[in-house]
């Protein structure tokens, strides 16, 4: 079975859980930015949680299948139309052969996820089907006219599904390796005020604007490895939260790390919206 792509909006990417384990070769982990939403979409159509689905930025995707299939749309809430009739977001929906699935613009959030029973079965690269936008590993961005192969369905669609997506809240941060570069307590300063999401945020990082965090000095560090969720401070003191397509090494100090369980929110906050940090409880 194949999905034929008729329209794409701002960006449509194939994403699964990414390719951890290759960072030492300079390969970003990649993977769905809102991982709980992608996992939910997969469960709804009876896929394993790590099946590849489509990450749709700001809606606008139109696809059809040459055979009937179960599909589910999760993540940023948007209108879901099958053969131009409104269907439910966050539920398994039948897409008949030849009918179109259309995603409207989300009213809140940025990224919606489309899972199809059987999973998007493009050729994996380094063990993953994720499109990495920094290192260009994995499939090219989805384009109009693509025929995406779909695997054989593995399970039956779920009528109801738990757990539902996690609740939004301040991003929990714990201490990073270079917290001592901050002139003051790094976590206190980060958590003191909110930040505004910058328009140049992307899958590499959530770029924030607000009160600059002062540093004791501004010398670049010898390059060192970076983790998912690293909060890096460039010389301008405006924090960057590294997301799935982050570079594997960098030379600006990492002063804090966002709890992985909160990173899905970084996939959904829009430029101009506010983000706050809070000190993570010790584990």
């Amino acid at each position: 079975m194949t999905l034929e792509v008729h329209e794409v909006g701002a960006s449509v990417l194939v994403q699964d859980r990414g390719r951890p384990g290759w960072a030492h070769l300079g390969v970003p982990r990649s993977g769905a930015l809102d991982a709980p939403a992608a996992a939910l979409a997969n469960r709804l159509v009876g896929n394993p949680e790590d099946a590849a689905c489509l990450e749709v930025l700001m809606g606008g995707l139109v696809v059809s299948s040459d055979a009937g299939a179960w599909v589910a749309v999760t993540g940023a809430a948007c209108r879901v139309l099958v053969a131009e009739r409104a269907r439910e977001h966050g539920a398994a929906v039948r897409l008949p052969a030849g009918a179109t699935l259309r995603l409207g613009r989300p009213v809140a959030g940025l990224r919606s996820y489309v899972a199809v029973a059987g999973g998007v079965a493009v050729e994996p690269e380094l063990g993953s089907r994720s499109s990495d936008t920094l290192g260009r590993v994995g499939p090219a961005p989805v384009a109009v006219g693509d025929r995406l192969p779909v695997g054989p369905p593995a399970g039956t669609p779920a009528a109801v599904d738990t757990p539902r997506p996690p609740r939004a809240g301040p991003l929990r941060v714990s201490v990073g390796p270079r917290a001592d570069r901050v002139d003051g307590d790094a976590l206190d300063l980060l958590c003191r005020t909110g930040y505004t999401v910058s328009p140049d945020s992307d899958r590499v990082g959530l770029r924030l604007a607000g009160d600059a965090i002062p540093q004791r000095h501004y010398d670049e560090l010898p390059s060192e490895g970076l983790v998912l969720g690293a909060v890096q401070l460039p010389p301008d003191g405006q924090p960057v939260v590294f997301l799935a397509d982050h570079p594997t090494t960098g030379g600006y100090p990492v002063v804090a790390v966002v709890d992985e369980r909160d990173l899905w929110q970084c996939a959904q906050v829009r430029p101009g919206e506010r983000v706050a940090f809070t000190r993570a409880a010790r584990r």
Partner: protein
Amino acid sequence: MHLLPVGHDAVLVEVGSPAEAVSLAAWARGRALATDVVSGAETVLLDGLVDRAGLAEALTEWSPTTVPPGRLVELPIVYDGPDLENVARHWGCSVEDVVRRHQATELVSAFCGFAPGFAYLAGLDVEVPRLATPRPRVAAGSVGLAGRWCGVYPTASPGGWRILGHTYVALWDPAREQPALLAPGTRVRFVAR
């Protein structure tokens, strides 16, 4: 050796030199201490730790001398880069001396970054600053210098390294079992063609 916390699941180990970082990273990867073992210039990041509590104890078993040197790769190079004379000025020598010195030095891949398969090769004892304005496009295979590092661009990209020449060898091929020709620990010697 100094351990720095990186959130809940990772630790950054400071060792102090590229050679020690390469050695510790190879050792830690051999013992599968973490999902990702990422060497840096003077550090090793252990990300996705299997046993956070037992890490400090496990690390006492490593010493820089316990890890054998990596395999040697000879890279053919044509010294036709646009920055040869500029590097010679920075080094205070002739272009011929730059070419001689670059070939005479055995380099080692300390870590990868910037792009898949882009290795930071350590071993030069003279430095050059990066270009003040990076070039919008540097061709794949370009061999460049920045600071005391040498690197080869695996794919065409923007870049601020000073270019000495080029090689035709494929540095990155995801279809290979070892996708990066110059994985950390690999020793490298350039040979003029």
